[in-house]
């Protein structure tokens, strides 16, 4: 992967991460984030063009309340999460949060000198945090390459993270988003993240 594609990939992951925050606090108040994500996706992978446009269009005239309700039902609760955003729910037999696989995620973050800020009040394997981590790791690797340093170790660590910890979450959560979302926005987001995750 070139440093240019690393950069684009990193930026896409950051923008994807934003999509899993409270919409009122993020992309509804900063709609440029969705447009930026859409634009980058179209450029990065032509096969995503249609979904990328749908993503933007789905927010036009959207009922903000409906979107908030869908966000809550999918990722927050309070009854049955429709698309749990936590890796451990899919990876661990107990289907709980903050379990064995979460500890593995934390270990990977540590390897990159990172931890989750205590203020976040979310487990380390929340989809938004994992996407932010990939964003950070890609930039770290890109910077190393720019400086002609050997990046094979972090690259391998990132590859292992994506394959063993990130993909099981994304594949199953995105399926649930497509199945259970009540808005076009989140249905499309699930579809497009699932497709794009192969490019990471």
């Amino acid at each position, binding site marked *: 992967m070139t440093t240019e594609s690393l950069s684009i990939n990193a930026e896409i992951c950051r923008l994807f991460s934003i999509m899993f925050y409270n919409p009122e606090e993020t992309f509804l108040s900063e709609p440029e984030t969705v*447009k930026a994500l859409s634009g980058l996706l179209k450029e990065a992978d032509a096969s995503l063009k249609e979904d990328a446009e749908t993503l933007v269009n789905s927010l036009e005239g959207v009922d903000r309340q409906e979107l908030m309700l869908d966000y809550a039902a999918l990722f927050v609760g309070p009854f049955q999460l429709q698309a749990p955003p936590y890796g451990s729910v899919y990876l661990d037999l107990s289907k709980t949060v903050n379990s064995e696989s979460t500890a593995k995620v934390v270990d990977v973050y540590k390897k990159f000198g990172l931890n989750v800020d205590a203020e976040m009040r979310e487990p380390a394997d929340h989809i938004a945090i994992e996407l932010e981590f990939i964003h950070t790791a890609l930039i770290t690797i890109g910077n190393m390459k720019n400086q002609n340093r050997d990046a094979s170790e972090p690259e391998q660590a990132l590859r292992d993270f994506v394959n063993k910890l990130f993909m099981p979450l994304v594949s199953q959560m995105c399926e649930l988003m497509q199945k259970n979302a009540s808005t076009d926005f989140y249905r499309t987001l699930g579809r497009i993240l699932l497709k794009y995750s192969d490019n990471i």
Partner: protein
Amino acid sequence: MKLRRRDFLKATAAVSAVAMVGCGAPKNNALAPMDPKKAIGEDPGKWISTTCQGCTTWDPIQVFVQDGRAVKVRGNPNSKGNMGTCCPRAHMGLQQLYDPDRVKVPMKRTNPKKGRGIDPKFVPISWDEALNIIADKMMELRNNGEAHKYMLNRGRYTYMRDMIYDAMTKIYGSPNNISHSSICAEAEKSGAFYTHGYWDYRDYDLTRTKYLLIWGLDPLVSNRQVPFVIKTFGDVLDKATVTVVDPKLNASAAKAHNWLPLLPGTDGALAVAIAHVLLTEDLWYKPFVGDFKDSVNHFKAGVTLDESSFEEKYTNGIIKWWNLELKDKTPEWAEKECGISAEVIYKTAREMSVAAPSVCVWMGPGAAMHVRGTYSAMAVEALCGLLGNLDNIGGTMMKGKTLAAKMPKLDDYKDKIAKIKHKYKIDQRGYLEFPALNKGKSGGGVVTNNLADGMLQKDPMEIKMGIGYMNNFAFSGTGAQRWEKAMSELEFYVHITTNASEMTQFADIVLPATIATFEKWGYLKSKANLHSQVSLLQPVVEPIWDVRTDETEIPFLIAEKLAERGFDNLLRYYKEQIKDPETGKGASNAREFAEISVKYYTAPAWDGSGKIGDKINGWEEYKAVGVWNDDRYGYKKSWGKFKTETKKFEFYSETLKKALGKHAKKHNVDVDKVLEVCNYEARGEKAFVPHYEAPFRYGSFEEYPLTFIDHKSRLNKEGRSANTPWYQEFKKVDLGDESWDDVLKINPDDAAKYGIKNGDMVRITSTNGSFTIKAKLWEGLRPGTITKCYGQGHWAYGRVAALDYKNAEPRGFNNNELMPCDYDRLSGSTARNGGFCGVKIEKV
């Protein structure tokens, strides 16, 4: 997900721009550079003391925490009550703590329509917004002269309840602080109180007992001493005779020497027949009860005796009891009533007398939570008097002392509104038909389950707003359908909870609460193995989500909001009266308040001022050991000093006579009228002695030929564990149950009669409800009865407990929707045992 850095949202619109920027520096929000000083590698971890609140054992435990994650649980080895043991509930706490369905942030209802299967349409909001909405509503009521239309509902609590249940409600100005206590207990306390003046659960000298009589419970499963019993039960079986009285087989009965499967609700008949044998065969414990003046036993069946012929020692009214109740209650009579053969009744009485006074009579809710349960409880507890085992070696024990501070007085913080006297509360305690004689005081107890009816009737007042914590009355009260109606009609409800449940379904604001054992400051008083304890709850891990402590932080936050609106009395009380005993300073914020208030209350246990029990040197040491133990409780300390009217063990209860008399006088009726209105059979003097009252039953035997038995699970953690996978996976540890299922257990003889096979779906119908459920043929109960474990049937809960929340589809059904609502009115207890629920079944 909290947005910490706005620049995280900065969009880069075009590929060329991204490429041009190159890799550069990442934009981060959730992630931050690690502290370079933090050691890399595996954290060795450590055990941290806290308390399990899975049942009312309130078991001191320790949690192993590694890298900020709770990974393992064990009994606290510093506890003299559990000797380092905990039960399965404590372990399940880990899955509760890390349940993905927990309430994570405050939420607001956006659909005004309320009801089962109606999506409340909750959306996340900030703590600030939630608290503003709550404070506005409280002030609106107050300003309109309607503060009394506010209620506080308390479910399971720690002793920090004072801050939310008492201080907040009373300083705000409402009489309506309503606890959960009588939903599952209280009636058994009547048994102890009206015989020996003790309104509490008993302790048991299991390590020295020679005879353990377990009556209406399974102590390996529930009832306040589970870890201690798990630890000692094997030894007890080796050294003592164990007899279990219960209509259905339980884990203790499976191991016991004798199992007496009596007919539901006939406990009183069996108890008085045992008493009859003890007296007629000269087997009572004379050093406690005394003897006939001529030392000749005159107790002969059917013979009335002269009261002056007997000289009592530590008891009152043995001859009155005999004359009013026992003289005709032969085992042969009892056999017809309770279904236990006369031969077994004789054998049981004789064996107990041989072991006396080292006999533990362990009575539980199965013998007491009946319509008319007070008298059943008294009849069983009265055996302690005859056997002289109360506070005696190897016997049934009362409790020692606990060191804890009292709640500071509220008076100076009550304004005109708060000082208004309200005669009654919304649960109608103290009404003629609801004596609720807690410690003998009319209306002194709570009638929790009647709250729903009080709300529906708007009697004695309308309720416009409620705050509930750690409660789920819409699931846990019998006749649960009434709760759904009452909650649907309630204007505004705040539910403070760890998991959304049936009660949350009706909430307008949901506030996320800490999980007691792992994230909360609190303390608890408990007892076992003859030691009273003051056990600490402390946060062993940082909460994952944006949760607050229900009993301290949240009322403090509300108090701050009320102060902003011009009513600062509550905030001043919290700041001025609850001081850190080490620094003398009050809390400056909610988080500080949570810890300071626990320090304030527990200080006598660790500040060196206490003259009894463990010596603990300061707060830090208390946090480390986690529990203060009283000295071992002394034998016979209470003899001659019982807190009854006569100071004696009362076979003729002057204490109950006084209590009933005062309640009758309050309503200008006589005691017989009270008993009639409250559906008891006794009239006249019989009302004051332990006696048998026939079970009251909903549904005739002709139409509803089977009697339903509700039983407890060893995995129910105060109604909050059904959403853990371990609960469902291990469900089969409840005898006869199946993993991930809810089954109706039917005796094979009855099943054959109805043509039902194992696994068939059947319809069960009571006078209150009708449900379809899978049948399980099980020999652990007598023909004519049918049983199902309580716990499944959530229609509004997380993805494990509820089969399909969206469609309100439960896993099985909730026993409380099958059982009608009624009470043991003398104690205010909800009836859930005692054969009061007739049912019919049919194959579907």
